[in-house]
């Protein structure tokens, strides 16, 4: 059974806040839930399925269903880090296609900018079977991605300047987003001159740390047909967990080499057909490797592809992250998957900022990456359309 065209993203909402010390975590979940439902023209009483990941407080879906006052006969708390929300979308589309549910609500919220305990089931990490062999070496999040970048540079001659262009392109988009955490356009030189965090990643190769959140509402065709808001059909989905490969990890690719083909095949399209991409951008290197993995350029050619200006909206070969992405706009809860979907929906609805709206945007990809490129990660790809 294919989910193609069975489920629709009817509502999305990105919290406008980037620093929210005075709102509780459940409140931010509620803010974005209500925002996305309002966008869809629905209310909490319409919701029959709820999805959240490790950023949900307390007992996860149980605490949040209770707090929000939902009546749900379908819940799911799949936790794959920053890609969780795309996996949720896949699962919601599957449940809708099977006829189990009609209105799925997916929320994300977090306050890493304010501080306190981070999202992501951190309480469980110590129990991980790999922990005695990985937690002793001072691997920061940038440090792990730096290992991947170093190996990619070694094998393919990728350069720091090519990585920097990812940030430059994101910043040229973010200047038009009044909510973006960073709105100044930066140059390749400014990226290269920003402090080195872990070779070869500079501070400006890293995403921002923001409070906030986002939500989406996914509905069946019968619900979509009675709504006035433009609902975006989900055409294809694919997810893949890339393990540490039995201790022979290859740092130069991600699970997108599997999630991408699954999603494209289900949608019946190829990378050449795609007008806009939201690519997970925890770091510049994440974007470069993912573009190769999804087949938007040859393996090893990501640096050249990016340096050609391909990612710049609206007229580049493959405009990306037109909200400014995690590198400039927002990376709520240290998880960028939700905002990837939201900007893709804006593009397909022709509601992105006029300066970055891709003309005749018919097909878009939203892609998430969770976990660490240095160890184990989960990739999830959605192919979305303007219409069926």
């Amino acid at each position, binding site marked *: 059974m294919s989910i193609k065209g069975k489920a629709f993203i009817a509502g999305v909402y990105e919290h406008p806040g980037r620093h929210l010390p005075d709102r509780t975590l459940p409140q931010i979940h509620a803010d974005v839930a209500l925002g996305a439902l309002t966008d869809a023209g629905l209310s909490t009483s319409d919701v029959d399925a709820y999805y959240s990941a490790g950023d949900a407080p307390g007992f996860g879906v149980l605490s949040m269903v209770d707090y929000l006052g939902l009546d749900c006969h379908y819940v799911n708390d799949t936790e794959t880090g920053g890609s969780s929300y795309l996996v949720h979308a896949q699962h919601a589309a599957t449940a809708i296609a099977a006829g189990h549910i009609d209105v799925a609500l997916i929320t994300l919220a977090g306050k890493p900018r304010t501080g306190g305990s981070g999202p992501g089931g951190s309480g469980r990490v110590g129990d991980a*079977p*790999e*922990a*005695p*062999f*990985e*937690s*002793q*070496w*001072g*691997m*920061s999040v*940038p*440090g792990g991605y*730096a*290992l*991947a*970048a*170093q*190996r990619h540079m*070694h094998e393919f001659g990728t350069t720091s300047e090519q990585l920097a262009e990812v940030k430059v392109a994101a910043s040229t988009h973010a200047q038009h987003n009044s909510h973006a955490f960073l709105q100044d356009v930066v140059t390749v030189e400014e990226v290269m001159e920003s*402090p*080195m*965090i*872990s*070779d*070869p990643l500079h*501070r400006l190769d890293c995403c921002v740390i923001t409070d906030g959140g986002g939500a989406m509402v996914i509905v069946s065709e019968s619900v979509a047909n009675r709504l006035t808001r433009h609902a975006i059909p989900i055409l294809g989905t694919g997810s893949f967990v890339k*393990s*540490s490969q*039995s*201790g*022979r*990890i290859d*740092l130069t690719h991600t699970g997108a080499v599997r999630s991408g083909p699954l999603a494209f095949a289900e949608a019946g399209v190829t990378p050449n057909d795609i007008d806009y991409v939201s690519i997970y951008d925890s770091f510049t290197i994440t974007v470069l490797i993912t573009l190769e993995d999804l087949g938007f350029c040859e393996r090893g050619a990501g640096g050249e592809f990016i340096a050609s200006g391909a990612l710049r909206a609206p007229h580049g070969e493959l405009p990306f992250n037109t909200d400014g992405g995690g590198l400039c706009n927002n990376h709520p809860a240290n998880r960028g998957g939700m905002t990837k979907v939201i900007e893709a929906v804006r593009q397909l609805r022709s509601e992105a900022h006029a300066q970055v709206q891709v003309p005749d945007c018919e097909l878009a990809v939203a892609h998430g990456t969770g976990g660490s490129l*240095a*160890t184990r990660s989960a990739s999830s790809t959605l192919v979305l359309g303007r219409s069926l």
Partner: protein
Amino acid sequence: MKLPAKAPEPNSENTPFFDGARQGRLVLPRCGDCGFVIWFPRQICPECSSQDVSWFEASGKGSIYSCTVTRRIPGGWGKVTPFVLAYVELEEGPRVMTNIVDCDPEHVSIGDRVEAVFEEATNRDGESGPPLLRFRVREG
């Protein structure tokens, strides 16, 4: 500068690895059915799912698969920057995450040949625990 050395907490699946480390020996698990050298240490083969796992002493030699000099990091590690985080590919096949020590961080590269060193480590209560498997660059 000496890197932080937090002793790992062994469990019944990986005890032979840490017993070996206490004697300065790199002891790895190998699948009794397919012969695969397993990393990270555990009592199941990720290649063939056999739970028949035996242990052998490895050479302790390898080369750097990837490395990064970390220059900014929060917490205790921030006091020992710059330091080298690396993946070392052992002669027996596994790629293991580690640090390269006794080195000038500015002159450590992918492909450098390295050898195991076991560094003393202490647990939360300051007691001595299993030593850490780190590597230094091999001469010649």
